[in-house]
């Protein structure tokens, strides 16, 4: 009898829960459904693969409500969609109404995109994080509507910071308390301590190739008060701050604080070192959270904490600030779009509160304030308190620390000049000053070719 009663209560609870969930979902609003688009075929070229494509399943709702049909003409990974867009823009073949975009890539596309200011009301735009909207605006023109964002907090191994023995050892060695680091200099001391005393195989890890290395240097540099370029677009990363950051990284490599194959690592390789529990501290994108917490995949699950990005080296004086190299996937409308208004309606739908909320549930960081509130409330009920702490921290970082690369079309060509020099510095082929000077000279030549100096 008691058993049956329990079942009944459980069933009622389920029904009530489902009802509440339905009510919650009911409050979530779609957008972009208020226009009759019967007979219009909206074409879209977007990023695909894995969980990126889950969002597109909701398009049937849009089609049913507006009468439009949506044709997805390309679903490619980030590298491939960038190549396609470049070729299509250059040849005038971008005959689609919605295109993938990204805050790091946007600047090279702007000549081929429609400004979106006229398609979206101020009220609609106010829903998005102001820091991201600033990064999406060039000369007063808004070129993209963000979809989801990413930024890196400090990830650290909990066991290292919860052990009283290690804390006492650290105090004896350095004369300071072992606390979760907030500055790059603290990270340097702690990373070295963990490795030199056998507590961790590596003190730190970072991606060491391509734009990933350029971005991580950029992040450490601006967190230390530096700037890649001055107001006249002359390269300035070979200043004292840049040299200090480069020497820090080189010292880590030479002293095996970071892995011997650092210059071969991209995001997945860096994540693997942390997943295995071989790394004490690192900056890492929020997007890896579910992977790290998976008991099936990672030894580090439930043994790591998150903290706001570090402030940079004290050589930067008062100009130091928290790290926060960030980016956002987004939607744009090509200048050659056959149906730009219909494309804008589709973007309104895909970036609406409801669709954005559904995508945020997959682990992506939202870009809408209303979605942030909702997912943080949802996470309050999570078994692991870090689930909620993560979101609160991410919201803080996205709103206060979000910093894109310079909004210039030459970002990727600059990166292709810069990162091999940075690798040479790490590997000891050249001194930090000489390597950065060479990179600056080549960058200046590239910027001169692009017409930056008149």
């Amino acid at each position, binding site marked *: 009898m008691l058993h049956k009663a329990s079942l009944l209560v459980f069933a009622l609870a389920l029904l009530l829960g489902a009802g509440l969930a339905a009510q919650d979902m009911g409050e979530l609003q779609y957008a972009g459904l208020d226009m009759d688009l019967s007979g219009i075929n909206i074409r879209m070229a977007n990023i695909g693969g894995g969980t990126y494509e889950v969002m597109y399943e909701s398009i049937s709702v849009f089609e049913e409500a507006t009468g439009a049909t949506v044709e997805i003409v390309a679903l490619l990974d980030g590298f491939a969609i960038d190549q396609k867009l470049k070729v299509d823009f250059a040849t005038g073949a971008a005959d689609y109404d919605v295109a993938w975009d990204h805050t790091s890539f946007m600047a090279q596309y702007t000549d081929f995109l429609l400004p979106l200011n006229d398609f979206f009301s101020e009220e609609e735009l106010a829903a998005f994080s102001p820091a991201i909207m600033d990064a999406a605006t060039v000369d007063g023109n808004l070129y993209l509507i963000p979809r989801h964002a990413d930024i890196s907090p400090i990830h650290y191994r909990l066991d290292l910071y919860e052990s009283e023995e290690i804390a006492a050892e650290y105090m004896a060695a350095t004369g300071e308390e072992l606390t979760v680091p907030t500055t790059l200099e603290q990270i340097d001391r702690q990373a070295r301590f963990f490795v030199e005393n056998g507590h961790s195989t590596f003190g730190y890890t970072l991606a060491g190739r391509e734009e990933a290395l350029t971005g991580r240097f950029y992040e450490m540099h601006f967190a230390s008060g530096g700037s890649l370029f001055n107001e006249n677009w002359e390269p300035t990363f070979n200043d004292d701050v840049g040299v200090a950051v480069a020497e820090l990284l080189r010292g880590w490599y030479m002293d095996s604080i970071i892995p011997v*194959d650092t210059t071969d690592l991209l995001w997945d390789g860096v994540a693997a070192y942390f997943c295995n529990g071989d790394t004490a501290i690192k900056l890492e994108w929020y997007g890896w959270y579910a992977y790290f917490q998976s008991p099936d995949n990672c030894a580090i699950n439930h043994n790591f904490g998150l903290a706001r990005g570090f402030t940079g080296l004290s050589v930067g004086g008062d100009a130091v600030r928290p790290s926060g190299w960030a980016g956002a996937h987004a939607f744009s409308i090509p200048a050659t779009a056959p149906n730009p208004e219909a494309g804008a309606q589709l973007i309104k739908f895909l970036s609406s509160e409801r669709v954005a909320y559904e995508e945020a549930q997959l682990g992506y960081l939202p870009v809408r304030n209303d979605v942030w509130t909702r997912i943080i409330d949802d996470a309050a009920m999570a078994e692991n308190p870090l689930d909620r702490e993560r979101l609160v921290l991410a919201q803080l970082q996205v709103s206060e620390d979000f910093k894109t690369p310079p909004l210039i079309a030459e970002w990727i060509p600059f990166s292709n000049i810069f990162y091999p*020099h940075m690798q040479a510095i790490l590997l000891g082929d050249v001194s930090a000053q000489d390597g950065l000077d060479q990179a600056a000279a080549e960058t200046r030549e590239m910027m001169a070719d692009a017409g930056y100096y008149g």
Partner: protein
Amino acid sequence: MTLQAQVQSGSSAEPEQSFTDGRISARWFPVFMLLPAILFILVVLLFPLIYSLYVSFTPYELLKPNSLKFELARALRNYQRLFADAIFWKSVGNTIVFLFLSINLSYVIALGLSQLLARVTRGQGLMRTLLMVPMMFAPILVGFQFRWFFNANVGLVNNLLFSLGLMQERGQIAWLVDEPLGMFSIIVASIWMNLPVLTIILLAGTLSLPVETFEAADVDGANSWQQFRFITFPLLAPFSYIALTILSLDISRAFDIVRIMTDGGPAHRTELIWTYVTRLAIENTKFGLGSAMSWVTVVLAVAFTLYFFRQLVRSRVVR
């Protein structure tokens, strides 16, 4: 008179009328018939070549359509920049080393394998099938496979060395980073991909050699090495020539391997012409500079080929 004879004679008015109704002379008739093929080749092959030569004299960037214009004062700028570019010359040097080692080592190993296979009396069919397996992999997959083999952290090679006690700590050797291990790793991957086609051609050649010659050598008391050195190897020359020609034309498929394994890095240590031109032209969208680099490469390749061909001819004449 047969049709062929009529066309060849060219002087007869009768076939002219019968073929073209008197509008095209018999001399131009074959050309007329070949015109579609000639036009196709012009459009598909020659036009892009000439166009890329033109582009190489411009500062053309893909996303700046207005940059596709020829200015005499800046025409040679791409070439001047390339000749002064140390990374370009490093990529040329690396490419020569890569081609030399990859092609020659592939040939030597394939020659050895073909001789061993030729002596297999049972299961040769199975072994030949197994030998073909690498041919079934796309180069990009070979790249991923060897990238994992040589991964310092979780790679097969380091873990094997560690298990055998040849390495004190896991992940000590950065195969894809250290010099010259990076070049070594991509050459190993390239050889693995080259072996099947080379071995099959050389095996076919070996099996087609006349048995009587070897029986006579046996009677004369020649040992195995002498038979290989003075009979097999010289008689295989035509097959070797075909195999090496095919490999030389096919070797650029290794681009995918290098792109995945090292992408020319770190710090340009494994930079090849293919990876560098991709970075310039595709990633940086500098089509002008990329085209100039391609043309310099073509000229260098032709010059090397002519030089080696002359040396080869000269050595034969001397002999």
